[in-house]
């Protein structure tokens, strides 16, 4: 099995969907014992999100749930009952981290206010993930990945290249969620590092709207220094070209890189144009992009993306192919790096999925399966001293 970065660390995971579970998935994939606390009977909402294996909407066949819950354990517990909350407190006592995304005020409402949690476990790290944060005028607003992306500022400047300017478009997938999950992971681990020296717990309040905005980096400087926001489009103001263009078998990016553009005519086998300002001078391309397009794009249309990219790379041009998710498993670089992971799941069989976000030489990222709903009830509740008879009784009462 090898060394694990977070071995011995116990995390109670009361998050669901995508963002929160991505945070705790990272903890689990690097070796923490993550106990997912799910609602009896239903479980995590991601269990009802596609894609489903074979398009069968079985809660144990969701690809979304699988991907976001690898290496976790699952227990069921009704937190809207006094007994449920009492049992939960016993779990909190043994935990290092509690991650939750109930929304502002809900923990207190069910009798688990910060004061109560601190009393039960003074060293607890409480990671509270919510759409807008625990405070502020929007804190009770309803949100989704789409609305958070718009409020977080990543959509307004994201406009397709056609004229007149089209409406804003959200980034593909569920980026607001992953951004928040990754930042929540960082916040949680930083608090854990601090705790090894101070023995003090920390409460973390992290907002999805702010997390999205934090990815805007240079857009902020552009506005507060100059009053400008750059649109995603063909006519970039920091260099040209940097977009995706059609080729024979799909799309390519043809960013030349600093000083690289004079090599484009070499690639196109028209070396006599190397000194043409369109290739020799970045400013000339920005001033007359359509001239550059007229020369290069018809040629590009006839090229195969991998072949052209590799030939370009040989002469230091940063050309790259655009790949679809379906092309990733066959990518030679990803294969050589064993990016895709495999795990056996009792219902889904062998599942192949995106693996390590980073390669750590000593404490490697671990593959693993997602848990069935309540799969670890006996193990976890047994560890608290509940007998099999107790569990039957709790199940009948709808508590687990």
């Amino acid at each position, binding site marked *: 099995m090898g*060394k694990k970065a*977070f071995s011995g660390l116990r995390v109670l995971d009361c998050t669901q969907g995508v963002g929160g579970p991505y945070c705790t998935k990272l903890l689990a994939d690097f070796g923490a014992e993550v106990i997912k606390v799910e609602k009896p009977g239903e479980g995590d909402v991601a269990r009802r999100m596609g894609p489903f294996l074979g398009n069968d909407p079985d809660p144990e066949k969701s*690809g979304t749930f699988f*991907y*976001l819950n690898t290496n976790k354990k699952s227990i069921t517990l009704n937190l809207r009952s006094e007994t449920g909350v009492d049992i939960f407190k016993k779990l909190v006592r043994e935990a290092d981290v509690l991650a939750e995304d109930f929304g502002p005020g809900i923990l207190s409402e069910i009798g688990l206010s910060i004061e109560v949690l601190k009393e039960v476990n003074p060293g607890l790290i409480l990671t509270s993930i919510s759409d*807008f944060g625990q405070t502020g005028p929007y804190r009770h607003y*309803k*949100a*989704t990945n*789409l609305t958070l992306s718009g*409020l*977080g*500022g*990543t959509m*307004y400047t994201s406009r*397709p290249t056609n004229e007149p*300017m*089209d*409406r*804003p478009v*959200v*980034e593909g997938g569920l*980026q607001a969620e992953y951004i928040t999950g*990754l930042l929540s992971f960082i916040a949680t681990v*930083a608090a*854990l*590092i*601090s705790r*090894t020296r101070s023995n003090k*717990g*920390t409460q973390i309040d992290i907002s999805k709207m*702010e997390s999205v905005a*934090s990815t805007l*980096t*240079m857009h*902020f400087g552009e506005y*507060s220094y100059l*009053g*400008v*926001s*750059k*649109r995603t489009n063909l*006519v*970039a*103001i920091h260099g040209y070209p940097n977009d*995706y263009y059609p080729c024979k078998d799909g799309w*390519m990016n043809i*960013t030349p890189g600093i000083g690289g553009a004079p090599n484009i005519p070499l690639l196109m086998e028209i070396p006599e144009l190397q000194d043409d300002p369109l290739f020799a001078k970045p400013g000339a391309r920005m*001033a007359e992009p359509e001239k550059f397009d007229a020369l290069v794009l018809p040629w590009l249309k006839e090229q195969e993306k991998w072949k052209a990219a590799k030939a370009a790379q040989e002469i230091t041009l940063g050309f*790259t*192919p655009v790949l*679809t*998710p*379906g092309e*990733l498993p066959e990518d030679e*670089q990803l294969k050589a*790096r064993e990016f895709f992971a495999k795990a056996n799941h009792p219902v889904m069989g062998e599942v192949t999925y*995106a693996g*390590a976000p980073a*390669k750590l030489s000593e404490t490697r990222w671990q593959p693993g399966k997602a848990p069935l709903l309540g799969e670890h009830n006996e193990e976890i509740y047994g560890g608290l001293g509940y007998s099999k008879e107790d569990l039957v009784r709790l199940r009948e009462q709808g508590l687990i």
Partner: protein
Amino acid sequence: MGYKLLDGIRIIDLAMVFAGPMSSKLLALLGAEIIKIESAVRSDVFTRANVYPENDPGEEPWNRGSFFHTINTGKYGVSLNLGSEKGREVLKNLIKISDAVVENFSPRVMDNWGMGYDELKKIKPDLIMVSMSGLGHYGPLKDFYMYVPGMEGMSGLASLTGYPDEPPLLSGHAYGDWVLGTTGAAALLTALYYRQRTGEGQYIDVAGREAVACHIGEVIMDSTLNGRVRTRVGNQHSSAAPHGCYRCKGNDQWVNIAVENDEQWRGFCQAIGGPTWTKDERFRDVLNRWKNREELDKFVETWTAQHDHYEAMKILQKAGVPSGAVLSMKEVHLDPQFVERGFFEIIDHGKGIGKRPIPKSMPAKFSGAEEFSLRRAPRFGQDNEYVFCDLLGMSRDELKALEKENIIGGIPKFPPGRPTRMDLVEKRGAGWRDPDYLSELRKKHGDDIGKG
């Protein structure tokens, strides 16, 4: 404000442009001491030489670039020429008293300098080193020249972004770099936590393309489970409607609306006053609304077009409908939720630049952790004395000798400071320009913004 969670941790930042500096900025905000290394022959030109205050490069343009200021807040900065053997010796001495090194050179650079992890480990056995690159430090394509469009394009993300009948869309805010840098910070902290318990360091190889691919993990599942390849869907939901970005009253204003179930649909219809089209048979349930989403979107827009985007959001939120104004960069700076929660820190960048709001790159609030005020991004070579003399114990004479040999100090080799091409912004639709930005910012962030 930063939080002193990583107090006492020292990290050497050899990185440039966005990804690497992003990783160390996050760690600076969490209380680590970050020492950014640049040299006069190899300074962080792209970020130092871009977007100057009021478009004025000034006399020292390398100290005025807004990109640099935004992503290097909270760090110390020294000048040190790593192209020389002596410079690398100084760096090695610095690494001996540090906890981690982050770098985002092309995969061959550190090895060529004799500063690969195996070498550095000899002088600092428990060192953590993070290498950030486009495709990773091993594998047949490791030497690919990669920029953000490559990372987003080769990860699958670009193929999913944009409208169905249009090209894949680049993020525009270097999202791929952000994911790479932030994943680097996450991995570094993971290793640091492990080192605290075991005393063991390690080497970390982060490939931007892989880090981004992890952020479309659930989409990739459709390919690996079912052999189905998803593509661009604009702002549509896979099974619910109305779901999109709708035009509002005013110039180029938009609101997002995401109705995902019948309860929200009923709330939506009620909130907009129940016009007759809401009772149309074609929109009676989730399935039918989704099937007829194009017609539905047109009707929805007849309502949104009568309202300001913030107003539309508020009306719909009252009825429990997920909705949100699509905020421009100006609005992000002024929005009450951001401002009230302290998302911006006002940092004084000194003479000729003054105070500017700098966003929190680590937007979490930590209660129980000690807060501290962030330093402004360093001027070129600003902290040479502190780092080389106070930390490394070099004498002032030794420092001067190294300055004479051009190993420390100097002025960065720098292209003439170029203003941003405002003509392209306006005439060619390359972006938006708000001439009143300073007075807008002063409304929310204080009268002294931009003064100093």
